[in-house]
């Protein structure tokens, strides 16, 4: 039985290698959030059939955990997803290697301002391939609004007292307040104004949410009229869970974020890793992922164009062209992060009084 299996495996491997013309097949190891595109089974099967490479996954639950894993396991991972706010830090610590866009055939479709985003570069070199982006703003329960609002100030509208859902996150909270007061979201200059804006939310907030799942539960049980949310999650809540919501892109702007794919410094299979990253930015993968599962916006313009008419992300990208400013979440000093946490904790304590 064993020998039989062995022969079968060999025949399979040889036929696959001859089919694709590869000398040998690699197993690459990807570090990402769970359920974030790279680990879709249907795509990995196709990828294996096309290149002979198999893909294994390891997951992280926070950016800090991702960085720690890169630091403590050199030579383990081939591809890692890094939010562009952390790419420079990873490059500075020597955790990831510089990349050349010409190694990625599908990169020609990437939006220029994303592909060459300063947050993905360090010391004049590119360290991440722009993959997905989206915005953080808020979504409304369509049953509670006659007309879709178009201003961020709707969050502070007394008409929704006690009906607002807010994510319990220090950085995001301060960034919302910074955006509302026209400050740099990555390094606000006036924390007193931010504190005042956040304190003013006291009568508004119904409760805090922490995960997409929680958000869906609160929204479906009617706890919220409106709640801060991520664009990619709004697409899923609307399409997959059938919640009566609309994602709002305020005229003042929204907090944008960009996720890139990088290759760690001592990646054991850099060539297969490049093939996989190119596979990920391929419009074919994205269109199927977004239509069947729901995804953030692809950094590849061609991929977004190929989405069916009326697709959430296609509409969103059109709306995003209209807004006043679209600041990207960028690298942040430890001092800024700690200051934001302090302001947020102080604000939450104020909510108790």
């Amino acid at each position: 039985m064993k020998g039989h299996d062995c022969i079968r495996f060999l025949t399979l491997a040889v036929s696959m290698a001859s089919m694709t013309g590869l000398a040998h097949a690699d197993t690459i190891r990807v570090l990402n959030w769970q359920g974030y595109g790279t680990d879709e089974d249907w795509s990995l099967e196709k990828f294996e059939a096309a290149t002979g490479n198999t893909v294994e996954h390891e997951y992280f639950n926070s950016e800090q955990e991702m960085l720690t894993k890169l630091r403590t396991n050199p030579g383990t991972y081939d591809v890692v997803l890094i939010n562009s706010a952390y790419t420079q830090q990873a490059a500075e610590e020597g955790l990831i290697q510089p990349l050349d866009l010409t190694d990625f055939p599908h990169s020609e479709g990437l939006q220029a301002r994303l592909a060459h985003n300063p947050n993905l570069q360090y010391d004049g070199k590119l360290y991440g391939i722009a993959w997905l982006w989206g915005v953080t703003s808020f979504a409304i329960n369509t049953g509670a609004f006659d007309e879709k609002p178009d201003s961020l100030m709707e969050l502070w509208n007394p008409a929704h007292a006690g009906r607002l859902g807010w994510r319990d996150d220090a950085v995001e909270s301060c960034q919302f307040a910074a955006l509302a007061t026209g400050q740099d979201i990555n390094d606000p200059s006036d924390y007193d104004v931010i504190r005042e804006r956040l304190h003013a939310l006291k009568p508004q907030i119904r409760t805090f949410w922490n995960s997409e799942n929680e958000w869906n539960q609160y929204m479906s049980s009617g706890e919220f009229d409106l709640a801060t949310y991520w664009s990619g999650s709004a697409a899923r809540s609307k399409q997959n869970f059938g919640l009566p919501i609309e994602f709002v892109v305020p005229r003042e702007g929204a907090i944008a974020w960009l996720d890139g794919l990088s290759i760690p410094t001592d990646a054991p299979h850099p060539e297969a890793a490049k093939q996989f990253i190119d596979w990920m930015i391929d419009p074919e993968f994205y269109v199927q992922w977004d239509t069947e599962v729901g995804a953030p916006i692809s950094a590849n313009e061609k991929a977004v164009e190929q989405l069916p008419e009326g697709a959430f992300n296609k509409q969103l990208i059109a709306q995003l062209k209209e807004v006043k400013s679209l600041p990207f979440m960028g690298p942040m000093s430890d001092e800024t992060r700690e200051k934001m946490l302090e302001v947020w904790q102080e604000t939450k304590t104020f909510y108790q009084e």
Partner: protein
Amino acid sequence: MAVSDTTTAPMNHRRPSNARSILALTGPAYLWLVVTVLLPLAAMFYFSFLSDVPLAARDWHATLANYAAFFQQDFYRTLMWRSLRLGFEVALWCFVIGFPCAYVLAKTIKGRWREALFLMVIIPFWSNALIRVFSWTMVLRGNGILERFLDWLIPGFGSLDLMFTYAAVVIGLVHSYLPYMILTCYISLSTIDDDLIDAARSMGASRLTVLRRIILPLSMPGIVAGAVLIFVPVIGSFMEPRILGGREGTFLGTVIEDQFTAVFNWPLGAALSFILLACVMIIFAIFQPILRRAS
């Protein structure tokens, strides 16, 4: 003489084997405690004096800044008071509800009914705490089970709006910790001799006097044990406040949890935990005379 020789000899022999059996019987338990309680606690105590989590590629040095932060920021003290108040209120409500229940179980009901009622007290213990809290969200939320029931009972009752309030946190925690109070009170109440109560009644003491002069003092050890068992975990609780308290659910426990899970600042989280522990110890030291007299 010969007799005493024969009696002392085996006793001398038994002594070392006695010590060995004590060691053999208690050793594993103490070893378990050292490994599972003292070592992690010691590691956390060490962390609380560091500037950053001691991992590779991170700069860290010894510092007192984490402890200083508690005294520099007013809001930590506000949250500490809130947590202590929550612990006190939950323990009080557990007593108010649990003591009569324990009294009925110990003195009024006998036989199979007692077993059945006991089972009902203990059953919540068998379910996961998270499930209990989520059940409460279904009961307390607007137009939830409780509001519909009240509306059915008194038409036009209106809305209570209990969900995401301080009261919701207290309700959830009282439900979680009530069995401790009932069990400890039951044990001390069942040791009170019924004849004492009968004697007092026959000498003309009113029911209230019996309760005040005999039952409450004699059951004090159980009440105190129950209150301590409830007070300590409640002031550090974070799951119930987070789910039931909403905007009003920020306590020292939730802030400590944030330090560990959201911002990866273990040293500050550890320092806040030890400050909380110190507060508990100070409170127990102040109430030591009362506690000792009670038990």
